[in-house]
Each structure stands twice: as structure tokens, then as C-alpha cells.
């Protein structure tokens, strides 16, 4: 990386909305159906058909506008973007040109200890195109029109991002917000979130922007990172060797790890935007705009900062919690019960619970676990009724079925044994079986006590109180 240059990045993020039906017709809006089964004369653009705007699309877009602190244009219109392509049945895409539904917003992203404010130029609504299918098993190209008319929002950032890391963090925050609002599945791997990346470089300290290149087809968080690193290095090399960067559109090939020129500025298409005469000016009332704002949940960045401030969580833990709305909601519910330390709950949610969820590739809402049960379990640990080790077994049971922790403890005999008279025999046997460890301890390697306590725990099948056992082990060795 050349240290004399600065990278300037802007992102255009397309997100498919998860409305029940498509944007202009009553076809079901669903991913993964048999090809050409979710289309009708309207989304196929057959002669004589007309679009009618789905109000749900407007509501979802306005929510996103509020989440990104935008001004909402209550009176707006839809425009036709004209171009020929086989996946676009009308040969125009209904989009928004000069009056987007939302504009002049920003998004705060967390970069280490810094909060970076990234400008959001606009958010507009538009329809998706179909999908072209190329395959070696047949000649030519096939088209699946299921995706035609799937509602999209396009979120355009200001050129405020300065590194691949920032761009990745911005995109991750956007997708998290989409999930928080419940308006998109936000799955980059299924194409429900897609990204075009604008990159330019300039000498450090310069105030004017360099010539930018736009990269299309950047379809994962990792690809965004790699594409930006590649492209900024390419441009820096061009400039460093005295050359000129040309404005062009490039296609990112993630497999090959490089971008290829698609078209230069001279070939830029004239989309001949004009207001769609089939769709009149549409109005979102001030009351509606206010009601949608009031309906927003607490957003991830705010959550993270609150967790750090109110509960003293590490920022990295707070971020890990808030990046997943389901887990963050669960955490909040546990804390709201007010019966245990927030930090303890966070440790369980980010530790054993996350591990079990990741192993099974499920979400917390897919399990039987309730905040009440988790908190009750933590209380059992705090009271000394069960050990942390036994609690793991209790947790697994509570995730599998709706059961009180006390019940699991009883059923599985997991109650902790703190009575020293009941443990004395076990301690004696462990010391007798491990003479080398005892000898080591006596020579001053006192940390072997941990090993011996562990052996005792094992012998009690996790039920022994580790603190009691520890005291007993040390006392017994010293008596020897």
C-alpha cells in the first residue's frame, strides 16, 4: 500500500425488500421458487398491463430512511430508466430519479473506539430485473423472470469512506439495520443485498477527489473488502507511475481477485429518465412518516454504545451482541428481569449459547430457551446450587425443550455438593491416585492444584462445588 495516497470510497447498496408481494403486481415475492413460476402479465411487461405501487414498499423504504437519519420526501414520483436488456421485460426499469423518497441522511459506524459518520446521499425505491442463466449444458441464455418486480431500495452513500475496513463495516451495519427493521432478508449470498463500489484515490491532503471507477458485481462482505484493496492499489500504481486513472465501470471477478473493464465513460448509457406516466405523484402523509419513525426499534450502533455505557461491556462484546437482533433482544429481555448482572448474561449469550447455535446453524429464536429460564439458571449458579459445568448441561436441555432449570437439575441430579463430609472421600482418593502431582505441589508448583480439583470434579460428575473442593485439596496436601 502506497502511503502517499488516500482511498475514497462510496457504496451503492441494493437491498431486496421482503414484502409479501412484488412492487407493482400481486405476484408472491419469494426467493428460490421454480423458474418463471412467480410472474404475471404485469411483471412480465406484456402489452397493455399497468403497474400499481405496493404501499408496503413505501413503508419499508421510509423506515430505512428514518434509520439512516434521512429527510423523507412526502411528495415524490417514480421515473422510467430506459435501456434494452433481455432481463428487463419492459425495456425500462421503474425507479426514482430526481426526487428520491429519502435523502440527506447519515450512518454512524464504529471503527475501534471511533464513531465515523458516513453521509447517505439518498434512498430510492425501484423494481428488480430478471435473472439471466448461462450454463454449459445448453446453448444460448435463459431468463428467469421470477425476480422481475421484486422491490428494491437503493442506498447511495456519500464518498465518505476512507478504507476497505470502513466500507466493510458500513455494509455490515446497513445489513444489520435491514434485519433490525425486518424489511429485508439481507442475504448477500442469495443476492438480496448487492453492492456497487465507487473507488478513487488522491494524494494525501488533497481536497479534490480523484477520478473514480465503479465496480459492479461485488457480492459479499469479503469481496467488497478485496475489491477495494485491489482497485485502490491499481489506481495508486497508475498514478505513482505518472499515468492517469480513466473513469470507467469495471466488473469485479472475486475468483480471479481482479477487476475488468466493462465500459468507459464515453460508452456511458443515456437512460432518458422521465416521470412514469402510469404512476402518478405519490404522497406519504406527515402522520404516516411520523408513525413509521415511532415504530423503529433501537438500532445496532445505539445498542452497542448503550451496552458499553450502562453495563460496562467491552465494546467488542457489545458489538457482537448487537449485530444479531435476535440475540440482542434476548439479552435485553434477560437484563430487564433485573435478577442478575448484565455482564454474566452477556457471557452466556456470547459464549455457550452462541457456540451451541453456531454448531447447529440455528438462531436463538429457533430454540426453546427463554430469558426467564436463563436468568433462573444463572441464579442457581450464584446460589451455589449448581456449578458452571453442570449449568452447561442445564442450558443444553433448556434450549432443546421448554423446561425449568430446577427441573433439569433435579432430573439429572446436577445439584452441587458443597458438604465437605460428602466430598472428603473423593479428595483422599484423588490425592492417593496422583502422587506425582501431590509431590509437585509440595515442591512449590502450586498450580497443579487446578488439575487435582479438576480430577475431583470429574469424580463427582461435575456436582462438586469447585471452591469447596479447592480448599479441601489444599488443606489435605498440606496435612500430608
Amino acid at each position, binding site marked *: 500500500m502506497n502511503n502517499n495516497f488516500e482511498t475514497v470510497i462510496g457504496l451503492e447498496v441494493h437491498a431486496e425488500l421482503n414484502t409479501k408481494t412484488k412492487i407493482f403486481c400481486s405476484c408472491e415475492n419469494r426467493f428460490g421458487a421454480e423458474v418463471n413460476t412467480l410472474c404475471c*402479465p404485469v411483471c412480465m411487461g*406484456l*402489452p*397493455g398491463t*399497468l403497474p*400499481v405501487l405496493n404501499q408496503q414498499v413505501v413503508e419499508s423504504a421510509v423506515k430505512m430512511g428514518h434509520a439512516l437519519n434521512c429527510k423523507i420526501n412526502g411528495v415524490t414520483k417514480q421515473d422510467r430508466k430506459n435501456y434494452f436488456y433481455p432481463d428487463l421485460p419492459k*425495456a425500462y426499469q421503474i425507479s426514482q430519479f430526481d426526487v428520491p423518497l429519502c435523502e440527506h441522511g447519515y450512518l454512524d459506524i464504529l471503527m475501534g473506539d471511533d464513531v465515523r459518520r458516513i453521509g447517505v446521499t439518498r434512498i430510492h425505491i425501484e423494481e428488480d430485473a430478471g435473472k439471466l442463466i448461462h450454463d454449459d449444458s445448453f446453448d444460448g441464455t435463459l431468463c428467469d423472470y421470477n425476480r422481475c418486480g421484486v422491490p428494491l431500495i437503493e442506498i447511495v452513500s456519500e464518498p465518505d469512506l476512507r478504507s476497505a475496513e470502513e466500507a466493510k463495516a458500513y455494509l455490515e451495519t446497513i445489513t444489520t439495520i435491514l434485519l433490525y427493521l425486518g424489511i429485508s432478508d439481507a442475504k448477500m449470498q442469495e443476492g438480496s443485498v448487492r453492492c456497487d463500489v465507487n473507488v478513487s484515490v488522491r494524494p494525501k491532503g488533497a481536497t479534490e477527489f480523484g477520478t473514480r471507477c465503479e465496480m459492479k458485481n461485488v457480492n459479499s462482505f469479503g469481496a467488497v473488502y478485496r475489491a477495494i484493496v485491489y482497485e485502490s492499489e491499481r489506481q495508486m500504481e497508475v498514478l505513482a507511475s505518472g499515468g492517469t486513472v480513466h473513469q470507467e465501470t469495471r466488473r469485479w471477478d472475486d475468483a480471479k481477485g481482479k477487476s475488468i473493464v466493462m465500459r468507459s465513460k464515453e460508452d456511458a448509457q443515456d437512460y432518458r429518465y*422521465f416521470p412514469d*406516466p402510469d404512476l402518478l405523484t405519490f404522497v406519504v402523509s406527515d402522520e404516516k412518516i411520523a408513525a413509521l419513525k415511532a415504530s423503529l426499534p433501537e438500532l445496532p450502533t445505539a445498542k452497542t454504545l448503550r451496552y458499553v455505557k450502562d453495563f460496562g461491556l467491552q465494546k467488542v462484546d457489545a458489538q457482537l451482541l448487537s449485530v444479531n437482533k435476535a440475540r440482542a433482544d434476548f439479552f435485553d429481555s434477560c437484563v430487564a428481569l433485573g435478577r442478575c448482572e448484565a455482564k454474566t448474561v452477556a457471557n452466556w449469550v456470547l459464549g455457550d449459547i452462541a457456540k451451541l447455535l453456531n454448531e447447529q446453524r440455528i438462531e436463538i429464536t429457533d430454540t426453546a430457551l427463554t430469558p426467564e429460564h436463563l436468568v433462573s439458571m444463572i441464579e442457581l449458579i450464584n446460589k451455589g446450587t449448581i456449578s458452571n459445568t453442570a449449568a452447561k448441561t442445564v442450558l443444553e436441555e433448556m434450549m432443546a425443550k421448554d423446561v425449568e432449570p430446577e427441573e433439569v437439575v433435579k432430573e439429572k441430579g446436577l445439584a452441587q455438593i458443597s458438604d465437605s463430609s460428602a466430598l472428603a472421600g473423593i479428595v483422599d482418593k484423588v490425592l492417593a491416585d496422583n502422587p506425582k502431582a501431590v509431590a509437585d505441589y509440595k515442591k512449590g508448583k502450586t498450580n497443579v492444584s487446578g488439575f487435582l480439583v479438576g480430577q475431583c470434579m470429574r469424580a463427582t460428575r461435575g456436582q462438586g462445588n469447585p471452591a469447596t473442593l479447592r480448599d479441601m485439596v489444599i488443606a489435605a496436601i498440606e496435612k500430608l
Partner: protein
Amino acid sequence: MKKLYEYSATELAKMLRAKEVSASEITEASLDRIAAVEGQVDAYLTVTEDIARASAKKVDEKIAAGEEIAPLAGIPIAIKDNICTKGIKTTCASRMLENFIPPYDATVMEKLKAQDIVVTGKVNMDEFAMGGSCENSYFKKTKNPWDTSRVPGGSAGGSAAAVASCEVPLALGSDTGGSVRCPASFCGIVGLKPTYGAVSRYGLVAFASSLDQIGPFGRTVDDVSLLYSAICGRDKRDATSRETSLGNVVGDVKGLRLGIPKEYFGEGISAEVKASVYAAAEKLRSLGAEIVEISLPSTDYALAAYYIISSAEASSNLARYDGVKYGFSGNRDGTLNDLYLSTRSQGFGAEVKRRIMLGTYVLSSGYYDAYYKRAKLLQNVIAKEVADAFTKCDAILTPVNPTTAFHLGEKCDDPVQMYASDVCTVTVNIAGLPGISFPCGSDSAGMPIGMQVIGPKFSETRLLSIAKCYETAVGGFAVKEM
């Protein structure tokens, strides 16, 4: 004795209910008449005998079973070939859609079918409704029943000729710049261009979406009223449609102030047309109307605004005909660009290509502000001017066309002159108003002259009432013997 095919829809509906005639007899009379005169008129692109007979049979069965029948049940109708008819070819008189069979009905067709109307077929038009003479059809040239060496007007020339030649009592057309009113005037019948939004456009193949409206044709005002009231009203599939219904068409002009805009009677309007329209205005005055002189100074600009806006929208609306999914497909062995180029070069006729090029130009970057944007501003000025005029009068009287029907081929080589003949009709579309055309005399060659009455938005009832008042006073409109 009056032949069955000569009766109006209103008369036929009464005769059906009185069981003086069956729906099948009416349909056979219409099909026989088509067989007899179609060779001279050439109105039809598709005749749907089987569908017509099946519909008629259904009506007769309902009557026999003592069931209530709808107002238009059993009445034959011809449909302009740009209105989608499920299972019946809808070609827009273009090679591009020569074999296009829509899998759905236009909303107007759903409404009419629900009334058990008898569709006799699809009728000729200028390709994609672009033209004023019906000569831009890829398939055939329709003739004017009053003189078969002359054009029927356009674009809905097939609809007007079918009604004027008594092949059917009713027809549907569409009007973007005069396409219902012009052929109604040339063929001596009644044609209504409804207020923009009064009739659903769902299923009408788009030419210029902000100007297009479906409208009814008939030989009498009552028939046009009957058909209009069956098709108007809001449709949830057309965001630009509005709820509306037809009131009582009383046929009275007493106390109405009728405005005569001097700009519609200037240079370029033939002396015979002017004289006829003035005479008709005088007649309406004698029937109790007040005639007031008004001015619409922006009239001259309406034509330019119309051709810019309509071509711009057309260039986008017609872009979907790319040879990929349906319709004519050109060279499929070359590149994607070869397919587009060959499909659109060979599939469209000259006039359609001219408008697509014009429309593409006016929307292009660098020209948008100078043309499209200014035309849209002009549209607002014109609409406001006409709205202001309606504070001085209740309706406006003008000619429909500068001349009567011209000869086939007469204006084909001069598109600008052809465009100029729309001068009296485009303002109605630009301002989204209703306008009616009805016969008000004939020229020295015996060709019909039409009068246009323009009203404020959703004043269809008033316009039909004025037309009916005139029709009654003159003892009905003449029908051409063929």
C-alpha cells in the same frame, strides 16, 4: 323496411327484452352484414364468428330461462385491435404483434363480457394508434363507408367504419390525440373521448400513457351513452383511473353557455367545416343555449406539445418490443444487438419508427430540457387556460377536423400535414378533458362534417346531453346506404 343491422343498440336492447328478436338473430344479421360489405370497407382484422355466436346463444338461454339480462347483452360490438382480448389476437395493426394473443382481457373487455356483449371481432387502426387516417396499418387500408376512395380517419378508422357501415351498432376505440373523434367525424357517427382516468387503461396497449383513453362509438348519442356507462369507473389495476359514473342524459341545452374559441376557426380550417359548425352553434342557440366568444391563445402550441409528449412516452412504451419474449422476432442467430436491430427495423412501420426516433431524441440528455420539459410546462399552461375558459362557459364548441375525409394516399407522403390535421383535437388530450364528436352537416361532396364539444373534467353527462339535444333537433343522424 328497416333492416335488423340498421337498428341502434338501444333499440335492439328493447326488442330483445320484448322478445321481438333473439340475440342469435341480431348476431347473424351483424355477421351477414360484415360478409356483405367488408369487401368494400375492410374494417376487420379478425372476425370472431364463433365467439359471437356463443355469446348470443348464452343470452338467448338466459332470456328463455327468464333471467335478467344486462343492458348490453346480445349487442354486437367491434373492438379496436389495441385493446387486449383474452385468447383473441391483438395486433395493434403491427407486424410486431401479428401473432400476439393476450392471456388476459382488458378491464373494459371484462366489464363488457360480464354484460354478455357479442364481440364480432377486432378492427383496423393505424399501427399502434399512430396516425389520423388508418393508412398506417401493416395489414390493410380501411375505407370510408361514405366514399370508399377516402380514408375513414384514424387512428380508430376500423371502429368508425364498422359502425358507420352498420356492420355493428357499437365499437370501442382509443383516443390519444383525436383517434376516436377524428374517425367519428369523418364517418358521420358519434364518438366520445372520456376524461383522462374515466375509463381504465388496463389492457389498452400503450401509445402515450398520459394521454390515452378508451372511448365508445355509436350511430346515436344514446348508444354512446349506453356503452360509456358500461366501461367507466375506477379500476384498481390502473392507478390513473378514477371513480365516475354517467348521470341522466336529458338532451337539453337551456341555460348552458357554449363558448366558441376564435382560434379554432382560423386559417387552415375549411370554409365548409367552419360554416357547418357555426350553423350547428346557431341551432343550439335556438334551442336555448347562450353562445359566448372565448379565446384560447395557446392553441397553436398544443400540437407541438402533443407531438413531443406523445412521442416521448411512445418511445419508452414501445421499447418492450425487442423480439425476445413475444411478437415478431428478427435475426436470432447474431448478437443480442442484431436481434434488437432486426426486430425493430422490420417489425415496426415507418410512422412508428419516426415517432420512436422523435421521442428518443426529445428525452435524450442535452435535449430533455429544451423539448420534453418545455412541452410539459406548456401542457400546464394549456390546461390552465382551458380551465379558466370554463369559468366563462359550460362547454366549448369547435370543429373536429380542419377538413372532411381526404382521399386514400393523399397525405401519406407529408407527415407534417398529417400531424396538422390533429390541431382541433389534441388540446382535449393535453388537458385531460372529455370531448365528443357528432355529425353537424356535410360538405359539397356529401362527406360528413363533425362538431366537437369539449367540457370540464368528468362532464361526460353534459356533453352527451348537448349532443343528444342537437341530434333530436335535427331528427337523428344520417346513415349511409351501402
